[in-house]
């Protein structure tokens, strides 16, 4: 047989090299997803903050902005009291609206309504709106 011409120890050596190579590639392939999972995320850090000039948020009124890639809203409920919430309805994802005359947020899709602090007042939304920390620094409102 052709095999007999090559001494078995050389065959063994060759096969061990080949097998270790494949083993190394497989080990790398297995650790890649683990590394991807553990590695810190690129792009927007969770700590990103948004600063909005205070005069953009009138008393009893709102200002819509983008917070960490998602629509959000900040409301000046009482003089100097600001509340920041996600503007995405927790029912099916429509963007809520502020109704100043009612003092409520309303979702135009199925009439879900939320209080100024984001709790559900009525309609189909299953959960309150997520709120974000707000602080006032001089003439700015800092969210996040």
């Amino acid at each position, binding site marked *: 047989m052709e*095999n007999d011409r090559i001494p*078995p*120890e050389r*065959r*063994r050596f060759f*096969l*061990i090299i*080949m*097998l270790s190579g*494949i*083993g190394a*590639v*497989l080990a790398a*392939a297995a650790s890649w997803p683990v590394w991807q999972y553990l590695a810190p995320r690129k792009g927007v850090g969770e700590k990103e903050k948004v600063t909005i000039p205070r005069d953009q948020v009138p008393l009893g009124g709102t200002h819509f902005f983008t917070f960490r890639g998602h629509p959000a809203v900040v409301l000046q409920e009482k003089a100097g009291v600001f509340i920041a919430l996600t503007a*995405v309805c927790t029912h*099916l*994802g*429509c*963007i809520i609206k502020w109704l100043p005359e009612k003092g409520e947020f*309303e*979702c*135009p*899709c*199925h*009439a879900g309504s939320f209080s100024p602090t984001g709790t559900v007042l009525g*309609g189909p939304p299953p959960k309150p709106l997520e709120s974000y920390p707000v602080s006032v620094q001089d003439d700015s409102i800092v969210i996040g």
Partner: protein
Amino acid sequence: MREANVMLLAKSCLLLLLALVAPGVLFAEETVCIQCHGGQPGRLGEPVNLWRQSVHAVNGISCHSCHGGDPTDFANAMSPARGFIGVPKGEAIPDFCGRCHVGVREDYLQSAHGEALGLGGPQCVTCHGNHAVRLATPDLINPQDCTRCHDYGRADEIKSAVVETDRMIADLEHSLEALHRVGIATKEMRGELFSLRNDFHRLFHSVDVEKVRSQTADYQQKLGKIRNRGAAIEEELARRKLWGGVVVALLVLGGILAMLLHKAYLDEERR
């Protein structure tokens, strides 16, 4: 004793299976409205059957969600004291439906259709039907229906302005659904799409060709963004599939090499 246990186990399994396969409709089925009206002939029972095929039934919106009343109490189900409001008259229909469909109501009321409300103009039910209401598509704009009141020209213009965007929305819904089925978290994208679809459907309730045309590009651009995100996920899945294939091939090759190595050892021993 053991038989009883087996029976109990079988029953629980059956219940679990039912809970898993039964759609949201199950919840709506329980109400006294359906129990009573479901069995009645003619005008009183018909709405129940029509409603069963509706998008409302699929989403668990039952009789009392629109007509009010108490769905748990036979005696007081239709008592105004329990919030029963019965059947709205023609002109009151937009307000009736608009309790939930606020946005659409707003745009409709400002439209030529809305202005003609009470003067022979159409309201929600004229186009969408009532109990058998389906998910709205541009097919609702068609010569038979529109020419009941006016000629088809402008309606056709609106239809051609919305058809392409609506097709984009439907395609996107399908591809997100497919991604969801293979285990990708698409809730956020689906929410954005739902919101866009709703805004877009609101828009053409304005029945204003110019407005629809001028805003369509904006909608298409936003839809394009969602589509790109979906496409990126699809690409990633394809890449994973490819690499998965490579790994399997390497494992097979490794197996063959291990066999040969085993043989080499045996040959060495034999010498």
